[in-house]
């Protein structure tokens, strides 16, 4: 019998005690997926067999965002363009998870080519928020967040270009960790915006996130942006005291656009950090208000270059009524891409085109340098920065889909972290008083200092759980 509220940690203990076998655990999750997925649409593909190995995650069933390649299986990236695409090789993170003994339950839904904030841009229909099926799970790793929140996997991999792990984690009430850019190999991740993309995990607890991160990190010869820094055991120092830790709260985070119910939960969470002995300091990130504008030039510019490879020649959708080579390119792309990729390809092409490059792309990359400098300056005086993950709790399906800019604004607290390449984690911090939906506290660290954000998130989570039990 598989217990309820099972985590990776408790599953590993249960497997060690032989309370259940790896096969029973896999079958348990398969049954849950068959039963619950038709309503949620969290999974796009299910795998039939478990290939459990040995290692620190031996026998742990997980879900993989469907823009990460698993050899010999379908990877759609949420697009009609890749409806029948079979992956030619394993992504590096998949090789690492195999080596750690994890098993794969299936591939999860996402906004097409990881562009969006609600998973409504998937060509395979939206995923529903497990807490309320009339609401979005966030995005773009919405399928991964919903799978973990609904206990359809013990953990899931996601990718985060502008908040795509942290924001759905926040909206679904799970933990979402985006490591520092360069920590985790992107080899085998279908590229969205290459200078921003980073693979990370969605888990039920912070301890589980640390455990999964242990297996994902490291230099990779197939991704020359990965660093050769040593990788610590991220679970080792989770319980070290955080008394006297300096916590920065940017005043710019609490301005127009932040919903009252999220603000209320974040302010209460800051009180909890104070109770844990942290020293709270108000700080300023002067260029914060420009981050989203810079992001929505850099992101589409990189997308327009990355998506140029989808041309109907080697793989992916190819138009069957093209007459010439140029026709093949144009018609395959026009038929295969959905509205959001087209919008961003157009925007990026414009920003990079002759005569506009300096005004848009170059300007945005300069503002990006200012944003990075703001963080560097802030980290002279504080050890971590905290604030909301997203301005709102989960919104209704269809509520914002007709207004692209309104959807982009949901990323306002997360994009600057990607522009600066920093690590960030979203940890659940209660339910909003109005919507009764989850709110996430975002904790941002210095480059390659995942240890400290995990430690704070872990102790914050533990104190919250204790308070919940005693109330």
């Amino acid at each position: 019998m598989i217990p309820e509220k099972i985590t990776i940690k408790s599953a590993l203990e249960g497997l060690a005690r032989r309370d259940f076998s790896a096969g029973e655990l896999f079958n348990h999750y398969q049954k849950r997926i068959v039963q619950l997925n038709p309503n949620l649409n969290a999974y796009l593909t299910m795998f039939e067999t478990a290939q459990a190995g040995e290692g620190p995650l031996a026998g742990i069933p997980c879900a993989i965002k469907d823009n990460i390649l698993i050899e010999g299986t379908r990877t759609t990236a949420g697009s009609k363009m890749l409806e029948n695409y079979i992956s030619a090789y394993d992504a590096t993170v998949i090789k690492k998870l195999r080596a750690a003994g994890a098993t794969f339950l299936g591939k999860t839904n996402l906004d097409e080519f990881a562009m969006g904030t609600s998973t409504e841009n998937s060509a395979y229909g939206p995923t529903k928020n497990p807490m309320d099926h009339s609401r979005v799970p966030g995005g773009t790793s919405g399928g991964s967040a919903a799978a973990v929140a609904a206990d359809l996997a013990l953990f899931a991999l996601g990718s985060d270009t502008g908040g795509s792990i942290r924001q759905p984690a926040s909206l679904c009430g799970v933990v979402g960790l985006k490591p520092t850019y360069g920590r985790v190999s992107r080899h085998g991740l279908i590229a969205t915006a290459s200078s921003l993309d980073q693979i990370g995990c969605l888990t039920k607890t912070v301890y589980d996130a640390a455990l999964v991160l242990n297996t994902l990190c490291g230099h990779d010869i197939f991704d020359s942006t990965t660093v050769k820094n040593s990788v610590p055991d991220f679970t080792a120092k989770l319980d070290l005291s955080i008394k006297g830790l300096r916590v920065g709260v940017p005043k710019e985070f609490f301005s127009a656009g932040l919903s009252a119910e999220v603000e209320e939960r974040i302010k209460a969470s800051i009180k909890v950090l104070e109770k844990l002995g942290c020293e709270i300091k108000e700080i300023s990130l002067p260029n914060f208000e420009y981050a989203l504008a810079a992001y929505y030039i850099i992101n589409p510019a990189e997308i327009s270059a990355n998506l140029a490879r989808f041309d109907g020649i080697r793989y992916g959708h190819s138009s069957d009524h093209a007459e010439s080579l140029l026709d093949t390119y144009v018609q395959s792309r026009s038929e295969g891409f959905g509205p959001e990729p087209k919008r961003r390809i157009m925007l990026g092409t414009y920003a990079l085109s002759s005569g506009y490059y300096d005004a848009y792309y170059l300007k945005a990359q300069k503002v990006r340098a200012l944003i990075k400098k703001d963080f560097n300056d802030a980290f002279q005086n504080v050890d971590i920065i905290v604030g909301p993950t997203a301005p709102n709790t989960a919104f209704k399906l269809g509520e914002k889909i007709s207004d692209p800019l309104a959807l982009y604004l949901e990323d306002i607290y997360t994009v600057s972290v990607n522009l600066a390449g920093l690590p960030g984690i979203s940890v659940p911090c209660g339910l909003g008083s109005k919507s009764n939906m989850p709110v996430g506290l975002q904790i941002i660290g210095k480059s390659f200092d995942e240890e400290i954000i995990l430690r704070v998130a872990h102790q914050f989570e533990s104190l919250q759980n204790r308070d919940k039990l005693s109330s």
Partner: protein
Amino acid sequence: MLTDAEVERIARLARLELTDSEKVSLKKDLSSILDYVAKLDATDTTGVEPLYQTTGVVNSTRTDEARGEFPMTPTLEELLIGQAPARKERFVKVKSILSKK
């Protein structure tokens, strides 16, 4: 506001063919996004170097030799070439570059 001609020029550069309704909605959406990003003009970036990547890794090089990580097998060959819409033996076949018209 972008003009219709600008929208068509960008689409041509991006190798996209837009329907009339796509042209209308993209003109509106792109214009509103460009209006929003225009706020960057308020920043002073005099003497600021652009930041293209964040890790500080410079010139990541390796020895120029075959590493043999992907030994070619019939299965891999099929995954790499067999997914093309047209092929001839081990080659991907494409349509003619010059128009017959």
